[in-house]
């Protein structure tokens, strides 16, 4: 069969093939513009804070930012591997190790919110209003289900510290300790289904409350304790470890995030009429 006849007979196939080739070419040509890459935690993304800040960043500095939202542990791992330029995380201990190990430079505090202990409104373990460490101890004694993210996120690490303070160094094998390995909202949902307790950041809880139209299965049982502060910091990745890191953009971003004007923008960010993050950058 001649080439012409072949084409004529398989017109559809030729058209389809050309389309495929075109799209493949477009995909290869895509994503080359220089952008700032950040690894951050689910709480900043799920609450919508980053979506709110991105256009302000673009307008102020011209920087285009892309982020992956994972737990703090994984976010720092991306930083260690040089896969991102900057991290925005919330676990002081892991962050200290990150900077001490030479992977990050010049960490800056950005904002805080707080952790809250959630439980069923009926409060079967009777911990309502207790200091948080005592509440943890009571939950363990009564073997009420404590649902944990167990994913090395900032929230998980804070929960482990509180448990340790309550005298429970290793809850791993305890049958009341439910380890989901999932994000904050999934974990709260599981705690709701199991009628258990869970430590959560307030931002995600407000989101959860809103999802349930103000009538959620879980409510705050303990809050306002000093040890429940949840500090967020921004850390540029060390360009000496990874020369590909866009350190100029990363530093500019850190400066911008801690600038009084942007701090006020963070203060203005509300979900369901409630302020989620409290700026506290050192000026």
């Amino acid at each position: 069969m001649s080439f012409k006849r072949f084409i004529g007979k398989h017109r559809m196939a030729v058209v389809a093939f050309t389309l495929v080739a075109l799209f493949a070419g477009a995909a290869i040509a895509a994503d080359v513009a220089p952008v700032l890459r950040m690894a951050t935690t689910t709480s900043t993304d799920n609450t919508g804070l980053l979506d709110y800040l991105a256009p302000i960043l673009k307008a102020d500095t011209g920087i285009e930012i892309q982020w992956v939202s994972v737990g703090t542990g994984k976010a720092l791992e991306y930083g260690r591997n040089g896969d991102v330029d900057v991290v925005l995380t919330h676990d002081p201990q892991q962050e200290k190790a990150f900077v001490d190990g030479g992977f990050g430079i010049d960490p800056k505090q950005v904002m805080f919110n707080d952790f809250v202990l959630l439980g069923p409104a009926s409060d079967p373990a009777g911990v309502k209003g207790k200091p948080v460490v005592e509440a943890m101890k009571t939950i363990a004694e009564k073997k009420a289900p404590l649902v944990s993210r167990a994913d090395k996120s900032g929230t998980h690490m804070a929960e482990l510290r509180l448990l340790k303070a309550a005298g429970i160094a290793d809850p791993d094998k305890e049958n009341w300790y439910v380890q989901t390995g999932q994000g904050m909202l999934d974990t709260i949902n599981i705690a709701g289904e199991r009628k258990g307790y869970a430590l959560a950041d307030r931002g995600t809880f407000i989101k959860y409350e809103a999802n349930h139209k103000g009538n959620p299965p879980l409510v705050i049982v303990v809050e306002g304790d000093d040890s429940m502060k949840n500090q967020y910091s921004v850390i540029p990745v060390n360009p000496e470890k990874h020369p590909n890191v866009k350190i100029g953009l990363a530093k500019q971003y850190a400066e911008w995030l801690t600038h009084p004007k942007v701090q006020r923008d963070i203060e203005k960010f509300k979900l369901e009429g409630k302020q989620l993050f409290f700026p506290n950058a050192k000026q």
Partner: protein
Amino acid sequence: MNYISDGFVQAIGLILSMDEETWSAVVVTVKLTMLSMSVTLALGLPLGFLLGYLDFPGKPVVRTVVDTLLALPTVVVGLLVYAFISNRGPLGGYGLLFSIRGMAIGQTILALPIVVALTASAIEGLDNRLKTTLATLGANGWRMAASCLMESRFALLVAAMTAYGRIVAEVGVSMMLGGNIKWHTRTITTAITLETGKGDFALGMALGILLLAMSFALNAALSFIRRRADA
């Protein structure tokens, strides 16, 4: 339980209004699928033909290996490819992580065994007299391959659609290698994961229905072409 019905209502709204964010996820999904499918077919059809057509020592072992790879878990592929294309890995300098190209590498590894295995089976299943006849008529290697592939085109279409199904439905590779970055690497499936994580089940359902609608349109188009070809 309202979110099931909410999902359907929202899906219709989503398809009709098609906001920028949803559209971006659709475009990324289409681009990624096109890229992965092109590479998978370009590599898989010749490899599958060779595996089905040739007789060589150790062929059963190769078949078994390919069949085993059909069961590759997406997260394992994601992890493996991450190790290679992470900045620390051997291919770190090419900026493949968190890009559509990087995701396509993972999806190709995922789908390639399907195309190779099903193509090989289709070629093996061809009537032996066809090969003899072609050889008698003096067909050389390329003509032989083209004729055999042409003869089994419907089986190959099934292979391609199965590979497409695996690619378009997976979330592990896209999440690990793409990072679910809004406007850039967020596909429909990673968007569903995100929305579910945010507790917005209805939007997740709506996106799922949208993805199925896209696949339905593709299958309907292929079935139309096939009927035209048969006529």
